[in-house]
């Protein structure tokens, strides 16, 4: 992560985020399952995944996919980016040996009536031509240098 603190004036609809490519290994899958306390065997036991789920290997679990999206967004926004909302869907499994690529595009920029600045993005994770997950996210960014969305509390925060 660059450490840059993106402000809303640097963001326009149509802006594409830098791609993030990750070579997924068995360790990636098991780490992700452990980090989200997901002990279901299809995320650590290849025999189980093949025989019970009918897939070729263990695969990334859904809560870890959310964590990958968060990392991707805040790599871009810097630490002043505050996630407000995420909606995502899993379409295909991601396995060891896959090279997953995260992509994102800014769809909308707005400042709400309380002065909080928001960027709405569409995000995706693909392996080759295979779309594995898609997501829409709403993230608050500083309206100007020195602004900090994390200071918003209670009714001043409308995600």
């Amino acid at each position: 992560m660059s450490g840059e603190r993106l402000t809303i004036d640097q963001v326009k609809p149509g802006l594409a985020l830098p791609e993030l490519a990750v070579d997924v290994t068995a360790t990636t899958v098991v780490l992700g399952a452990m980090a989200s306390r997901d002990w279901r065997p299809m995320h650590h036991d290849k025999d189980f995944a093949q025989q019970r789920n009918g897939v070729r290997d263990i695969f990334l679990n859904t809560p870890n996919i959310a964590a990958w999206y968060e990392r991707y967004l805040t790599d871009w926004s810097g630490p002043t980016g505050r996630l407000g909302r995420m909606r995502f869907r899993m379409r295909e499994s991601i396995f060891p040996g896959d090279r997953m690529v995260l992509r994102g595009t800014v769809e909308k920029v707005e400042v709400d009536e309380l002065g909080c600045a928001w960027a709405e993005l569409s995000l995706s994770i693909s392996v080759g031509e295979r779309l594995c997950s898609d997501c829409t996210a709403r993230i608050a960014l500083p309206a100007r240098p020195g602004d900090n969305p994390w200071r918003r509390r209670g009714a001043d925060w409308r995600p």
Partner: protein
Amino acid sequence: MVESADDLPPEVASWIGQERYRQPGEFEVERGYVYTSCASVENGNPLFWDEAVARELTGGWIAPPTMLSVWFRPHYWAPNRTGTAQPLQVHFDLKEALDLPEAVMTDNTIVFGEPVRPGDRLVTWQVLRSVSPLKRTRLGTGRFWVIDVVYENQRGEWVGTETYTGFGYRREA
């Protein structure tokens, strides 16, 4: 947001809009697990690694927002455990009550409120928002349902809501 199909069993209809399975987290929010989560996705956000940045921006350490549900997933083992409600118990209740043996989750939305901080003891509950009439899809015949899982901290502040859309179904014979 409450809406229902007319042909639901009365017991299921009564669940709509009702707060169910309120329970505290089994353990408090802790930084060790924050590191584990960040390491799993190589998340270098200084909010989770640099105390000066955390103090400046968030008034101290916080947990990554997407870890919300992690704080309610039990450790693999605990002494004298007699069984706890599953994270989406309402989903499993619906499968049983509506006699729909198969189910998939089609959609997941997370809305984030107050930051979650190490030391917090969160509370969660589930609310069934809607159940559709019977529908036929390529998977089989069944119903879509929407369930909110709400999270609050020990101060009664809302920290987030996860909304799941599930489809419970029976395969075509």
